[in-house]
């Protein structure tokens, strides 16, 4: 009975580990989609409302909420009230947002690169510069979705199989 219980626990543990890998992929995908939606909103505020970047961030902060919302509000306040340099402040706030996230370096770059695409005199040019980031975000989402499709089943079945294998070996 004890052996059976141990075996089940080992299988459960291995499956859980596999599940956590899949969840991490899910979380990365969700975050990438959130980043893309942020940039889409930003593009709208730039193109149609001609809002300055900090203002656009404040508006988005109301929609997004959570860690991004807090970070955008802090950037708005820092730029408007504290007269702090945007690039520095953006980096600091994004570091805070990304601290406990599973995003890879290439995915984080999507956020870190934002200040470098600013500075255009016309809103159309500015929106186009933002489109580059949007394109990159969409590309990464596509890749990750593909990876998820391929990996999820494999990781889960591998997890369960390894669990069964270890159980057999221990028995």
């Amino acid at each position: 009975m004890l052996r059976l219980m141990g075996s089940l626990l080992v299988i459960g543990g291995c499956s859980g580990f596999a599940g956590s890998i899949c969840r991490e992929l899910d979380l990365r995908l969700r975050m990438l989609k959130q980043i893309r939606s942020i940039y889409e909103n930003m593009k709208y505020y730039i193109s149609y409302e001609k809002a300055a970047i900090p203002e656009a961030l404040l508006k988005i902060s109301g929609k997004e909420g959570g860690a991004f919302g807090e970070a955008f509000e802090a950037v708005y306040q820092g730029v408007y009230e504290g007269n702090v340099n945007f690039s520095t402040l953006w980096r600091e706030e994004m570091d805070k947002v990304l601290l406990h996230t599973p995003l890879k370096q290439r995915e984080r770059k999507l956020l870190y690169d934002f200040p470098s695409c600013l500075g255009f005199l016309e809103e159309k040019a500015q929106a186009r510069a933002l489109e580059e980031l949007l394109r990159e975000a969409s590309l990464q989402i596509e890749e990750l979705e593909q990876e998820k499709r391929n990996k999820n089943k494999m990781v889960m079945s591998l997890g369960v199989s390894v669990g069964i294998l270890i159980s057999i070996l221990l028995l």
Partner: protein
Amino acid sequence: MGKQQILWQQEPAWKKEIAGIFPDFMRERWNRALSGGDKLQEIRIGVGQPVRLCFAGKEKFLSDEGFFCGSPKEAWHMTERELDEIIRHICRYSPYAFEHEIRQGFLTLPGGHRIGMAGQVVLGDKGTVRNITHIRFLNIRISRQVIGAAEKVMPYLYEGTRFLNTLLVSPPGCGKTTLLRDIVRQVSSGNACGAGRQVGVVDERSEIGGSFMGIPQNDLGIRTDVLDGCPKVQGMMLLMRSMSPAVVAVDEIGGIEDMKAIFQVLQCGSSVAATMHGNSMEDVESRMQAGSNQEKGFWKGYGPKELFERFLFLEKRQGKCGIREIRGKAGELLFSGRWEELCCG
């Protein structure tokens, strides 16, 4: 100074606003410079040129460390990169959002301070200014609102409780806009001569209200609507249609089109307060009639006395602005000579 209260003397506020124009890495220098700049009027910056601070009648250079220095050789010569950083910071890293203002050559900042810009102009298809790229020269003008500047003038501007159509005339830099701003404030909030009225301000160059993102940074009274950055003629008509003001205020009128718009405002039963460049009644008449003489019919020979009932002539003496004379509709002298009594700072 009497009841006048010069708001720009509230040190921390305006100094903080001006220091805030500059990016972090040069703010310390500017804080140092501004700490000794109580009567600062302008800051002039140009790529490769010494940084200059203009006080009432004096000019000082700023060193690399933020101290005043006597010669331009020792002064801080702004680099292209430094100036670009200032512009990015002023525009909140969103120059596209200020495209219209940059095209006009100036930006208004919180506190009503104005930044004039010059650089390489990009022309549009029809030869109009499309934008200014490579901004290489800045002129930062410190906003100064003189609350109470119009106090002693107000009795001359009313007939009973009716506000008379008023034209303020002077050469540039003699306090026309400062006086108009306080007239607007007093008419709007009410004063000893009349109850508060609805006032509409067409602020084409953002000088009256000093608006930042549509919000006037100067006190224009409790019943004032401001149309910021709007051309005068369209603005006056728009206000009449939408906000029904009892008094309309505009800055720097000149051409026949402005006169026609003012005429329409008067036809709607509202009063007008306006400013104009000039020095004398002859100046005003020749300027206005120069346009109207080329017109036909009703407008031919139409002059300022048909529109305005009070003419205030301002001038500057010993660095102070004041009113030289006030004339009535027929050109009769209502006030003259007692210069010091109506000084508006």
